[in-house]
Each structure stands twice: as C-alpha cells, then as structure tokens.
C-alpha cells in the first residue's frame, strides 16, 4: 500500500505542475502579488510531494520490500544499511527520482528569493523550472515507474552491483546530480531573461551564486567518481576519458566558463548574449550527459543502469530543452543593449573572455571526441574508439593557455580606468617559474611534457601567492589579527584565489601521476620480499575471510622503508555470491608525497600470486585540488555582498 501512495504523489505532482505551467503561461505578462504567490506555493507543494515520494522509495529499500521491481532487482536483505539506502539511486528509476527531487528542491530554493528577484523574472524562472519538472515527471511515469510491483514475490533480491557498494559511490550520484540540476537554475534565469526581456547587473548578481554552488557540487561529484575509479577498479588510474566521465566533464567546463562570463556581465555589463548562450548550453550539456549515461548508446566501461529504449525519451527532452531556448535566443537577443564603453585589450574582462573562448573550445574537443565514434558508426558503419591519446593532443594544448592566463587575470583590473601595474608581478612570476622549470629539468630532462605541465603548475601557484602578497604589501592595513586578515582577504576575491590554487594543486598531482609513476607486475609467493628502491614489501600471508555479503581472499604485506616498518597493506579479492561477481580491492597507502598501490591478482599456494605494484607520486593532490576548487566556490558565495556587509557591521 505504501508504495502506491508514493506513486499517487508522483501523479499528483505531475498534475499540479502541469496546472502550474498553464497558470504561468496565461499570466506570463502579469507580475502582481497574487500570481507570484500562487506560483511560489505550488512550487512548495511540488517539492513536498516529491520529497515524500522519494522518502517512500528509500523506505521501501530500507525495509527490503521485494514486491517492488527495482528493490528486488537492486537490493538484498544482507546488504549493509547504507548501501540499501544508496541502492535507491544506484539504478535507472531511482536515479531519476533523485534527479527530480533535487530539481524541485532547487526550484523551491529559488522561489524563496521573492524579495531579491523581480516578480516578472521570478515567475518565468519558476515556470521554466516547472516545465523541466513536467518533462522528467512524464519520463518517470510513462517509462520508468519506480513503484512498479512484481506479481510473484521473490524470497530475496538480486543485490546491488558490488562495485557500487562503496561509500564514495554512494555520495557520487547525489553530488553530481546536484551539479547537473543546479545548472537548470542559471538556464531558467537565461530563458527568463529572454522571455521578459529584462536583464541587468542585478540579474547577473542574483544568478552567480546558483552557478557557483552547482559548479562546486559538480567539481566534488566528478572528483569523487574519479577517486572511486582509482581505488575501486584497481587499474591504478584516475581518469580514462571514458564517455561517461566526459559526460560530466563537459558541463563542468561550460559552467566554469559561465562562472567567469557572468562575473564580467555583473561588473561591466557586457557579453550579455554570450552569458545567456552559455547558461543554456550548460544545462543542455547536463541533459546530454544524462542521455549518454542512461542510454547506453556509447560504449563505456562505466555506464550503469543503462537502457537504450529510454534514451529516445531523454533525447526528446534534450531537444525540447535545448531547441526551444535556442530559437528564443536567436529571435530575442538583438533586444539586449550592452554597455557601450571602451573595451581594453589589457584588462581583466579581456583575460576572462579569452579564457572563456578556450574553455568552450576545450569543451568542444571533448564533445567531438565523445560523439565522433557515434557519428562515424551511423555514417559508414565503421566502429572506432577514441582514447586518451586524442585528448592529450587536443584538450591539453588548448587548456595550457587557460592556465597561463589564469595566473595573470587576477593581477589585472576591470575596464580601463586604472592603469595596470602588472610588470613587477609578471617579472617575479616568470623568474620563479623559470627556476622551477629548471629544477624539473634537473630531475628528469627526458620528458618535455612533464616540464611544461609542472611549470604551469608552478606558474599558477606562484601567481596566486604573488597576487596575495603584493596586495597585502600594497595596503597600509595592519594584518595582526586573524579577523583582520580574513576580512581583508574576503574583500579581495579570496574564493577566486582558493579555487585557482586548487587548479594549481590539481596540476601538481597530474604532473606527478602522469610523468613520474612506476608500475609493474610480479609473481610472488608467501614469504617472498619485493624490493623497490629503499622500500621493501614482505609477503606475509593469504587468508580467506568472510564479509557481510561476500567472501574475501586477503593478502597481507608489510611495507618497510629503510628497514623500518611503515605499514601493513592488505589487498583483497572479494567474491559476492549473490551477485555472482568478483571485485578487486586494492590496498592503498596514501600520504602527502604519493600512494603505494597494491593489487592482488590470480594465484594459489603452489604457483604464487600475481601482484601489481604502483607508485603514484602526488596523486592525492589531484583530489585535494578539486577540494580546494569547490571550497573556493563556496567561499566566494559566502563572500557575496550581503555577508560582506554583515561582517562590516560586526566590527
């Protein structure tokens, strides 16, 4: 009975949201209190209904209600509680439920900004958000009902793919969706501006935090996915340029560009059309990403819960959600009048604009690499695949100038009013980078790319530090208390600096992992010792251990450095009898300077086991960098005007 309530709630939401869209389209020109309040209240109702419906689905997973198709297909009584819950979104229907839950949550949050956003714009934003909600609700109700019942009650469920039974992957989809769906808000802002014809600096100011929060969530979501692939798949790598990874990376690139262009719009009131276009594209790429992952159209080793027949439906949603606004865009953009002031070539806005250009071009190269195999197949039936080599040859060189400019842009000032005193900083920056590059050359002169990549990281890191220190020196402010320092920095793009530092830290990690890693395979038996440099691994034992819902073959290695015991590593092979599959659990010793990564292969007592050892220098910097980027995003939201005022009052 309870699941039926969930289903009825979904149908009710579908009905109310259609009524809401109709109401909005009839009152599109009105902006009175009554209209806006009706829209705000119905948005709240939609959110509550979906929240309850989602809650019921989670509850069905927790109590293992196997009369539901998705529960019996994706869960099992023996599964730990956290994976019963995360199993809710570990499948097609449940992940769509999560999608609409987050969508209605965002709509609800925006609808509360009645006092900041003009009524006309706000009602359009709610209208557009609700249209998207309608599309996805019809998708769920007509093709992917999560509350479908089984006629015959099974004794137990089929279990969840063991690879998904992992804390990193329990959190990865919600964060990723938070990012994807968060981009719908800026999309609605843009379409709202096209409908109402209303655009100003305040529009950009209101929109920016939404992009930032979506961008931060997307950053963490992607990083979690990559981290999971690293420790769970046992391949030692962290990014494979797989279509599913690209699907999340393209919206990230567009969102990054948008984040910067909306800032230009906010300060200088130029690039209106470009910002609107990016807002539309950002969400389109999110939908495209969903389509790629859900349709199973592209060969990917990562795609879960895919179903080609439903892909068509998402393609239709994609066509409506992209096509409609783009037509509107083509007809309406000539209405917007930009600020006709001088545009200086050496200014912050031109640096950001150039970066925008490169970022979108980079997104285009990823798009081509992802979709080209599909087109070629449709065109002449040739089946091809495009691997990392393509991206190294296209994406990397396009991103290099972005990193170069990223360090310089914060030095520059907006517009042409102030003279730019950047020569001193630039000289300082170049000298440090040259010295760093020379250092890298001394370590390893054979690889030009490692020197370039490492130098870029040094360039950016130094750029951030130089900018901060010069700013401190330039002021007469005495920074003797923590509060004063914080206040000072929060006035000066602290968020930007943290995020940029994140990129630099990330690049350091990439350089270490890409160019200085070692890996090898070796066959060893219990009692053997593996020597690598000043470290050695002693193969102690292999034992069979029971787990909650698996059996494990666990090996024990003692890691010694300079004959002192550092740690004990326990790589495992797990066999999940319910799902009838096997997973490899790598043993990873992670520290600041790098990871020791151990994988247990096939083997037995007679022949010994095949063992893979990786040393991945600086690899945790990759995820640390992503963490800094997201943190920078959050800080810049906190730094927004309002909180700055509050801080001023606090003193």
């Amino acid at each position, binding site marked *: 009975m309870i699941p039926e309530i969930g289903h009825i709630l979904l149908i009710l939401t579908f009905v109310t949201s259609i009524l809401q869209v109709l109401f909005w389209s009839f009152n599109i020109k009105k902006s009175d209190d009554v209209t806006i309040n009706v829209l705000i209240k119905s948005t709240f109702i939609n959110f509550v209904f979906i929240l309850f419906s989602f809650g019921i689905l989670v509850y069905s997973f927790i109590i293992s209600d196997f009369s539901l198709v998705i529960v019996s297909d994706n869960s099992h009584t023996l599964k730990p509680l956290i994976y019963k819950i995360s199993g809710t979104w570990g499948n097609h229907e449940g992940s769509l439920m999560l999608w609409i839950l987050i969508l209605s949550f965002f709509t609800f949050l925006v609808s509360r900004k009645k006092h900041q956003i003009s009524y006309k714009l706000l009602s359009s934003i709610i209208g557009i958000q609700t249209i998207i909600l309608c599309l996805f609700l019809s998708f769920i109700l007509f093709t992917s009902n999560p509350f479908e019942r089984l006629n015959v009650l099974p004794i137990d469920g089929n279990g969840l793919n063991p690879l998904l039974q992992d804390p990193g992957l329990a959190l990865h989809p919600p964060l990723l969706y938070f990012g994807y769906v968060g981009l719908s808000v800026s999309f609605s802002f843009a379409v709202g501006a096209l409908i109402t014809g209303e655009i100003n600096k305040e529009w950009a100011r209101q929109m920016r935090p939404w992009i930032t929060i979506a961008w931060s969530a997307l950053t963490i979501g992607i990083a979690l996915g990559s981290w999971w692939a690293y420790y769970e798949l*046992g391949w030692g790598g962290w990014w494979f340029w797989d279509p599913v990874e690209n699907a999340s990376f393209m919206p990230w690139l567009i969102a990054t560009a948008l984040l910067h262009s909306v800032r230009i719009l906010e300060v200088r009131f130029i690039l209106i059309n470009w910002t609107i276009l990016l807002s539309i594209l950002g969400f389109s790429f999110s939908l495209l990403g969903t389509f790629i992952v859900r349709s199973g159209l592209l060969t990917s*080793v990562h795609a879960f819960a895919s179903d080609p027949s439903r892909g068509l439906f998402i393609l239709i949603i994609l066509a409506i959600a992209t096509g409609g606004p783009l037509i509107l865009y083509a007809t309406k953009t000539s209405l917007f009048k930009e600020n006709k002031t001088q545009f200086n070539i050496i200014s912050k806005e031109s640096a950001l604009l150039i970066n925008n*250009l490169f970022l979108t071009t980079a997104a285009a*190269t990823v798009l081509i690499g992802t979709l080209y195999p599909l087109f070629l197949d449709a065109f002449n039936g*040739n089946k091809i695949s495009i691997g990392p080599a393509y991206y190294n040859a*296209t994406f990397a060189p396009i991103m290099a100038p972005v990193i170069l400019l990223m360090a310089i842009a914060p030095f520059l000032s907006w517009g042409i009013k102030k003279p730019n005193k950047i020569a001193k900083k630039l000289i300082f920056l170049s000298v440090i980078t040259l010295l760093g590059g020379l250092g890298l050359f001394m370590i390893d002169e054979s690889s030009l790319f490692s020197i370039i990549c490492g130098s870029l990281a040094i360039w950016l890191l130094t750029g951030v530090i130089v900018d901060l220190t010069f700013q401190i020196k330039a002021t007469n402010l005495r920074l003797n208390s923590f509060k004063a320092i914080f206040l000072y920095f929060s006035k000066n793009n602290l968020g930007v600096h943290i995020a940029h530092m994140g990129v630099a830290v990330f690049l350091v990690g990439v350089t270490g992992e890409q160019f200085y890693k070692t890996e090898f395979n070796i066959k060893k038996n219990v009692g053997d010792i593996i020597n690598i440099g000043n470290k050695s691994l002693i193969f102690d034992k292999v034992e069979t251990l029971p787990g909650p819902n698996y059996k494990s073959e666990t090996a024990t290695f003692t890691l010694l450095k300079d004959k002192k015991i550092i740690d004990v590593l326990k790589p495992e092979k797990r066999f999940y009898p319910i799902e009838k599959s096997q997973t490899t659990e790598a043993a990873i010793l992670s520290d600041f300077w790098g990871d020791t990564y151990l994988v247990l292969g096939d083997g037995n007592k007679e022949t010994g086991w*095949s063992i*893979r050892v990786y040393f991945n220098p600086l690899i945790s910097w990759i995820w640390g960098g992503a963490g800094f980027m997201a943190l920078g995003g959050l800080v810049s939201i906190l730094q927004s005007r309002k909180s700055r005022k509050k801080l001023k009052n606090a003193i």
Partner: protein
Amino acid sequence: MNPKYRRLIIIIFITLTLGLATKLILMALEENIIYFFTPNEIKVKYENKQDIEKKIRVGGLVLENSVIKKDGTTKFNITDRSHQIEVLFDGPLPDLFREGQGIVVEGMFRNNKLIASEVLAKHDENYMPPEVADALIKNGVWQGEKNDP
C-alpha cells in the same frame, strides 16, 4: 582604440583560436582513432597478409576452454562464433574476465596474433559491448536479452 579596429582584432583572434583547435582535432582524430574489428573481419581482411600498422580493438567472447595462464602472461582466443583470434596479454585482467564473457581487446595485430595492451570488460556481468552484440547478431548467435540494440 578605435572600436572597429578592436572588433577586428577580436574576430581575428577568435578565428585563429578556432582554426587552431580544428587543426588539432583533425590531426588528433587522424592519428588516434582506434578501429574496431570482429575476429571475422580480421580473418577476411588481414589473415596471412600484413600486420596492421595501427592499434586496433577486437571485440568478442572469450572462447571456452581457451584461457591459459603462464608466468603472468594470459593466452586466450576471442571469438564471434564464426572465427577466432589468438590473444596474448601480460597485464592485469579485469575482474569480470572469464570464459564466455563479452570483452574488448586493444592491441597490435602481429603474425596473426593480437598482442594486447589492454583488455576491457564492463563492470556489469550482464553487459555485452554493443559492438560485440552487433557482431554476434550478424552471425546469428545472439542469445542475450539485455542491452538489445
């Protein structure tokens, strides 16, 4: 600066960037595309003729009772149920590698053998790479129900 002049610079810059990007993409596509073959296609096109210069991918099923592991090297045959190709691989096999499983092998074709640099199997035990499914359908031996194209 004169606005007209300025606009010209911007347009030239954008054209140059996009042109450069296009050039990079085309070059990279030409060099880095990996073609996919079925064992059947390889037999027809390349057997006893010449080695294929570029890396290729071959998809099919791991032939039953063909897997031999020795000194860290795995030897097995990959089949589309009409022809088969011998594969040599000395790296780590994916967890889902087993006889009868649909896989994709990437590597160089030398002396009628595929020297694999990578063996890919998906995380999902019911999964069949679409290329493999296509090949199996062509040969009329498709039995799966999931992932029907």
